[in-house]
């Protein structure tokens, strides 16, 4: 019997902990679910953080709407927290998908921002980081989005489309950014997002990339240039390849659809100087031809193939030159290739890698395999 009494006395003790309340009690009404964050230079303080919050329109059919709230602060966390003053809600960052940084902030360095992102247990490291092509990053979140009411989610959908159809930019997640910034022999590039006019209304658009030296922005590449960077990084999955064929002075534009692509980077040591050999193997289909020329004889096809290869090689080389001369940052990850394939050499050249990179001899060999020409046997012809 005495034992039972002891048990009964013990029960209220447990109840004190278990029933009296919760320490981590969160009501969904009290939470502002943050879908995306835009970071700008503030007017009074260092940073201005604009957050896109998923709002619920009350009504019979509850609708989702996007609300923006912003705050200023000397650190990003302070800026975010100051915005709670306005919204009266705590931010909840577990569903945050995109972070947009303005160019001004990126020029100062994105390290503080990345640090906040990977330190916080709530923010997921699969968050995508982007750079705004516009003057401010908040502008992008303020622009219209077409399909998704939540603009940050629209950005993520656009990334998926990029991968499937365009390959003009690629998603960089927080952990990939950290690896690119902190890894040996690679520099960071981030996708850029801008605002264009669609049916007369400002709408967000994704293309191109921003080039970084360490954690500071040094330049922007447009979508076409970015595609060739992605070619080198072996990140092209599907996309379009435009080729200008100067065939007997009859300028022709051919659109190839890239089916698949594989790139190999081989670091070499030629005459004591490090160099890089890039081999690209691309399989394409002909999807659009803007002249009545036919490529049906074997000779013609061969010529087309070699032309396409030449053009691809030239384009890749052009972007390598541009980055080497203008920015001097190794966004192609050539250094990391040296590191993994020639570790001994890499240990020697590592301290002066930036100098080596700008002088690096790069040879490109592209192989384009033209598989099909769609459903058409012949091109269209216009007769009198």
């Amino acid at each position, binding site marked *: 019997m005495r034992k039972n009494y002891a048990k009964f006395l013990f029960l209220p003790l447990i109840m004190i902990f278990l029933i009296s309340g919760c320490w*981590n009690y969160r009501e969904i009404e009290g939470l502002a679910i943050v879908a995306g964050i835009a970071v700008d230079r503030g007017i009074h303080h260092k940073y201005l953080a604009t957050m896109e919050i998923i709002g619920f329109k009350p009504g019979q059919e509850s609708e989702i709407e996007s609300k923006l709230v912003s705050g200023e602060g000397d650190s990003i966390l302070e800026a975010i927290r100051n915005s709670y003053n306005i919204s009266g809600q705590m931010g909840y960052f577990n569903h945050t998908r995109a972070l947009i940084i303005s160019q001004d902030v990126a020029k100062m360095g994105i390290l503080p921002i990345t640090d906040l992102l990977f330190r916080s247990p709530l923010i997921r490291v699969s968050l995508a980081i982007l750079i705004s092509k516009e003057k401010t990053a908040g502008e992008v979140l303020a622009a219209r989005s077409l399909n998704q009411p939540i603009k940050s989610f629209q950005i993520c959908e656009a990334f998926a489309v990029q991968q499937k159809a365009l390959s003009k930019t690629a998603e960089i997640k927080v952990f990939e950014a950290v*690896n690119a910034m902190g*890894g040996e022999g690679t520099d960071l590039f981030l996708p850029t997002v801008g605002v264009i006019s669609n049916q007369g209304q400002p709408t967000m658009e994704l293309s191109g990339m921003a080039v970084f030296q360490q954690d500071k922005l040094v330049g922007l590449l447009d979508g076409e240039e970015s595609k060739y960077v992605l070619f080198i990084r072996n990140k092209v999955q599907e996309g379009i390849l435009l080729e200008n064929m100067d065939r007997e002075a009859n300028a022709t534009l051919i659109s190839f659809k890239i089916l698949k692509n594989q790139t190999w980077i081989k670091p070499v040591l030629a005459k004591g100087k490090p160099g890089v050999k890039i081999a690209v193997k691309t399989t394409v289909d002909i999807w659009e031809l803007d002249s009545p020329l036919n490529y049906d004889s074997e000779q013609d096809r061969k010529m087309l193939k070699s032309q396409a290869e030449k053009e691809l090689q030239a384009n890749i080389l052009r972007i390598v030159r541009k980055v080497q001369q203008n920015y001097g940052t190794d966004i192609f990850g050539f250094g990391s290739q040296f590191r993994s394939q020639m570790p001994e050499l890499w240990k020697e050249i590592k301290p002066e890698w930036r100098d080596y990179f700008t002088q690096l001899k790069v040879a490109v060999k592209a192989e384009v395999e033209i598989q099909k020409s769609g459903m058409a046997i012949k091109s269209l012809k216009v007769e009198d």
Partner: protein
Amino acid sequence: MPKEFITERQGLNMMVLFIIGSTLVVGVTDAAKQDSWLSVILAIIMALPMLMLYARIVHLFPGQDIFMVIHRVFGRIVGKVLSLFFVWYAFHLGVLVIRNFSEFLSEISLTETPQYLIQLVVVILGVWMVKGSIEVLGRWTSFVFNIVLVIIIGICLMAFTETNFANFTPMLYGGFRPVIDGAYSIFSFPLAETIIFTAVLSFLKPGANSYKVYNRGLWIGGGILLAITLGNIGVLGYPFLSTQYYPSYITVSLIDLGTFFRRFEILVAVVFLLCGLVKVSICLFCTANGLAKIFNTHDYRVLLAPVALLNVSLALFIYPSMQAMFEWVNVYRYYAIPFQILLPLLIWICAEAKLRLSKTGAIEKD
């Protein structure tokens, strides 16, 4: 008091969960960076003879746990002092695991809950289970083992889809030293921690083979560690991986199957809770059992609750911060040498000598 038994399989399951216990979330040391997986393999090979030695101690005196063995081999006074060492190790290990447990939980979800509450819940469960007898623990472990195994295999397969093989290159970039360095860390945490099992495996059913339990436990537990390490390196890569306290949790949070199946990371937490509970319970059992032997109490059960409460109170202030907890890992590898290597060696040599000298053959007598 009727004699309690656990089967060979239960012993094996306990050992596997014990090994992957806290290492699953904390991750193995990253001394060797992208070669950490080599460290794991090396550590398994390094641990094999040591674990065989532990098994030998269990085997020499069937039905007698490490404390009885120490008493028999070294006599009463010395035996009690040495037992105290072991009790301290088991107690301290329990404290560390409990603290790991509460730090992890308070980091990922219960940010505002005081840690002592989390710790209290864990040890109350542990006490309850061990109080039921080691058999209850064995049966519960066998039940949980399957769940844990399914989750881990699932996670590893899914992580494979996100793996970037370039993360593993270049191999042996920093040379062999960091690999061996890392291997020793993995040896001391968690592989050689199975010294605690010398107090558990004496409850094996007569005729069960302690070598088999240790051997298989090491390979399965070590294999799981290897798979997790490979997954972490492959998905996250360096240097990001070295910035994270809980790499497996982050790795799994990156897994997306389509757009619908995501956010599996809670599974890591679940597995850790289950394994952590096993580890805490075994440490509790070992401590209480050892103390009972030292104080000549027949029933270790009465000591469980006080030991558990002491565990919690020490766990509260053993580290001032989380950084200190992870710094301790570097000290622990040296701190654990006497308990994991020197003491077992001493016991083994003396036990063998004693058995040979007495000539009567204690094995047959027992």
